[in-house]
């Protein structure tokens, strides 16, 4: 179940136009799960390095790695 949900979330992220998504957006990929369950799965994906947090300081969003990696962000400023 957990693996299936992870795949659904990753697939959903790949099909979105925006590179950064809110927690609520990710939950749409797994509508049968309660939000607390979805949170556990999303955090497992973060720990596995399959998705990344992006934070403005006030809001947190999620993105796929490689779309806007730290290295890219910092390289672009050199």
């Amino acid at each position, binding site marked *: 179940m957990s693996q299936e949900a992870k795949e659904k979330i990753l697939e959903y992220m790949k099909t979105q136009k925006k590179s950064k998504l*809110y*927690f*609520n*957006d990710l939950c749409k990929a797994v509508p049968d799960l309660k*939000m*607390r369950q979805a*949170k556990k799965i999303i*955090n497992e994906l*973060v*720990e596995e390095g399959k998705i*990344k*947090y*992006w*934070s*403005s*300081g*006030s*809001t*947190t969003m999620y*993105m796929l790695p490689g779309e*806007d*990696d*730290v290295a890219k*962000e*910092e390289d672009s*400023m*050199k």
Partner: protein
Amino acid sequence: MALKHKTPMLEELEKGPWPSFVADIRRMAARKPMCEDLLGLLELSYEQKEGHWKHGGIVGVFGYGGGVIGRYCDRPDLFPNVAHFHTLRVNQPASKFYSTEQLRKICDMWEEKGSGLTNMHGSTGDMVLLGTTTDQLEPVFYHLTHELGMDLGGSGSNLRTPSCCIGKARCEWSCLDTQEITYDLTMTYQDELHRPMFPYKFKFKTSGCPNDCVAAIARADCSIIGTWRDKIRIDQEAVRAYAAGELVPNGGSHGTAKRALDIQKEVVDLCPTGCMEWDGKTLKIWDEDCTRCMHCINVMPRALRPGQDTGATILFGAKAPILEGAQLSSVVIPFMKMEPPYDEFKELIEKVWDWWMENGKNRERLGELIQRFGMKAFLEAIEVQPDPRMIKTPRYNPYIFYDPADVPGGWEHDPKAFRERHHA
């Protein structure tokens, strides 16, 4: 010290009798090139009347979704030492008690691994460490957690670092052990603090009494404010001593000279509910009408004290004015005992979070959701009955509109006939 950047506009900010953050940064600039470039960048921003920071990013420490706020300068060609200048929020001890030894250790670590600049404290309450590079984030986190016994605080869509007033540590009016509550909530909700799940930020603030020294009612999504449900304790001898000018009114806050207090004019007439009476010898208080404004207690602290059956009023929904304007918290639980392990409170807060997570839009604070759905929907979701103490004045702010189905016997209402009798 001569800086490598000219800063004539910043120098203006160092003039006058006030402390200047420019002087502080300049002092650090002698040792840290990062601070030198920071001043140069700030001067450029003043010249051009434009900011040069890019706020936000994916930087953080492993496994945490908060505590680090990415910050980059958009002119690294001119100011390479502040190309990255990330902020770390450090969870402050409850009531911000530190030993000087601990503060020195933190400052030494931060001078070595960051800019050396701090903000004591940010408005959420955290100790803020200003300015470091991406490669130093994990080493700083390791040092904080392993050497200093401290942790990062909350940022982003997380539970923010809970904060509280000084509480029973130094305040005789505190009706709550604010530090114990803050510590317990911090430890219980570690996952919510470090791993985001909410539509937006969520703040707990705890004040020991209705003076609300941490301004919980104005700032916290959940305000826990100490109160009492028995009677204000009165020492009539001390009341007469205030009237006779034997004691300093207001605990010395408005002048330390003894003077005769006009109890009628300065206390009784200023009581917002008119629940007091003074005949020149005895002060009477009708406690059932008291709304805990604290004025009388603040004016005569030797004579009046909060009651002894203490607990907290729980309020929800305050926020600063980003959307819709500022909101104060609304009373939801007029009185809760608040004793460890705070199960009753935790059961309530988890219902609130579930409702907010299910229904909140992205970046919608709890108070905005309550406003959008109505207090009635909120109370139904958290299974709390409406209570007259939730409103200030009946008919002026009626949060609760009853349905005929809610009231035994119901009623018939014909809106068309009503409009015929009440045009407009």
